């Protein structure tokens, strides 16, 4: 089929329209979510001023200052708009628990969480993709059975339970790894992150393994694989070609992986007492430090929305078949 310039232009236009619809849909969802997150402050049990005062004494001056600081005398929609405007410029107010601005608090803990999730993601990828490929290629073999079992346990086992088991084995039986905390920076911190990262990587790896295995199994049944084999291509080469096509659904699963990562990070950091965003969230929730909870919730929602959008785009740009189908509609 030859594509005329006109057809190409209309294809590009409908592709553009589809992108706009996706982006607008994402923004819409985020706006609704921001309203819910904002209203948390007003819906939380107890008196709003007392909640915002935290442990400080409630003198009339302090109450007046709080009312002015949070614009509590303005109508609700104005409060929301001011809050949203501030949030968009990175100003989420003050943490009543840590007596610092929310952006400072988050900034100081972002590093640990980023390092932990990065390390876990790397570990999971390095183990799960080859294992997934092998388990699909040798479907039914012992390696496949092992991988499937590993996948089920990895998907089912809660992060904290795995973490505690590892903690027990490596901290008390074979004391190679440190038990708690984040160390003193640099290599020491990395050393402290190994156990939590393995803990997180188990669940992540299980998801990636499942995605890889399913995608590879589907690709291996296609005609081009049969044809490649019939032409005498070595197995290795055929598998690499199949993996390239299987990569598409794996990339699309990125938001699934990220969703797991968020909950998993909270649990892993709590289990190993790491001062990251996860423990920050847990502490803030239990202390009802609502400004921090609001900021973290929005941050996660925006990150996930962006990654999901990028994964969708990657899907469209990686796979010409999808591109043709989407723009044909």
């Amino acid at each position: 089929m030859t594509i005329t310039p006109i057809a190409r232009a209309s294809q590009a236009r409908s592709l553009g329209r589809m992108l706009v619809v996706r982006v607008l849909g994402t923004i819409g969802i985020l706006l609704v979510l921001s309203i819910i997150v904002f209203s948390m402050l007003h819906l939380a049990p107890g008196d709003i001023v007392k909640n915002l005062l935290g442990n400080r004494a409630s003198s009339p001056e302090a109450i007046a200052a709080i009312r002015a600081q949070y614009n509590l005398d303005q109508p609700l929609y104005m409060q929301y708009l001011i809050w949203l405007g501030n949030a968009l410029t990175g100003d989420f107010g003050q943490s009543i628990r840590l007596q610092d601005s929310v952006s400072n608090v988050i900034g100081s803990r972002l590093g640990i969480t980023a390092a932990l999730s990065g390390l876990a993601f790397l570990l999971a990828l390095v183990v799960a993709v080859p294992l997934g490929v092998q388990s699909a290629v040798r479907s039914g073999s012992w390696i496949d059975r092992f991988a499937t079992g590993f996948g089920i346990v990895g998907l089912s086992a809660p992060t904290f339970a795995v973490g505690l088991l590892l903690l027990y084995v490596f901290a008390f039986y074979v004391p190679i790894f440190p038990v708690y905390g984040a160390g003193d920076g640099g290599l020491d911190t990395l050393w402290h992150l190994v156990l939590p990262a393995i803990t997180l990587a188990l669940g992540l790896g299980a998801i990636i393994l499942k995605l890889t295995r399913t995608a590879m199994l589907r690709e291996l049944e296609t005609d081009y694989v049969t044809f490649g084999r019939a032409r005498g291509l070595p197995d290795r080469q055929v598998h690499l070609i199949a993996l390239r096509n299987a990569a598409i659904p794996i990339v699309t699963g990125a938001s699934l992986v990220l969703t797991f990562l968020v909950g998993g990070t909270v649990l892993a950091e709590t289990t190993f007492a790491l001062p990251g965003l996860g423990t920050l969230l847990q502490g803030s929730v239990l202390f009802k430090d609502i400004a921090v909870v609001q900021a973290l919730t929005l941050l996660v929602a925006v990150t996930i929305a962006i990654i999901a959008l990028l994964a969708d785009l990657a899907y469209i740009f990686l796979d010409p078949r999808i591109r043709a189908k989407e723009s044909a509609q």
Partner: protein
Amino acid sequence: MSSTEAIVLAKLPRSRRRHPVAVWLSLALLGLVAFLVLFGNLIAPDATAQSILDSLLPPGSPGHLLGTDELGRDVLDLTIAGAASALVGPVCVALGSMLLGILLGTVAGYLRGPIDFIIGRWTDLLFSLPLLLAAIVVAGVFGAGYWMTVLLLILLFSPSDIRIVRAGVMEQAARPFVEAAQMLSLSKARIMFTQVLPNVWSLVITNSMLNVAFALVAFSSLSFLGVGVAPGTADWGRQLTDGRAIMIDNPAAVLVPALLIIGVASAANLVGDWLGQNLTRTGRS
């Protein structure tokens, strides 16, 4: 088994017929735990009774097979009694989410139009946040108790049920028997719930079994973080939080509930997968 099913089965790769031994073991474990849920309070009536004299005994102590925790509570009794708290919630979550999924999914998938649009945006919204994060934030900030947490998780679990039922109903709605029912001028509600829905059951049951596994994980995660289950309750997740500090003195206080959570969740997952492969062959497109 019909002959077409036998052919389909024969054509499946060997690995997709999961080893039945694992399934039987899983069912046995689930049965044992169900027994503990039902009769745990009779076997260990005073599990949360504290005793200073018996504080922190190691496993194998006389009278305390798994030892005691720092409050002198017997770990074995706690674990037996904790099964109810750890499992009743998740099962209720799976059932509630199934009900919501059937109701909204069938309506959205059969009627389509504006109702479908609204339900669709609703599931989009619920999907936009990770389930565990939403649960921690809402249950934590509002100080939700056990049953409020169950309701919250039902809400958060329902989108997957809604989408699965909706997809199944949409597939069925295009079939001739639905057209026939419409020609007999049966009411829409009757077609939806007596004609279409029975064909989607296998999907629903499979997903609910998987939901039990994930709800167990979510529930115990929440109680581990100190949300949803009151301190002092006999609950597996809670045992892990409390037991972390005494891991050296009595490892059983942590290892036994941890392994039980992992085991039960894996078993429910395995049975769910197995049901999925044996029930839904006709339902899935």
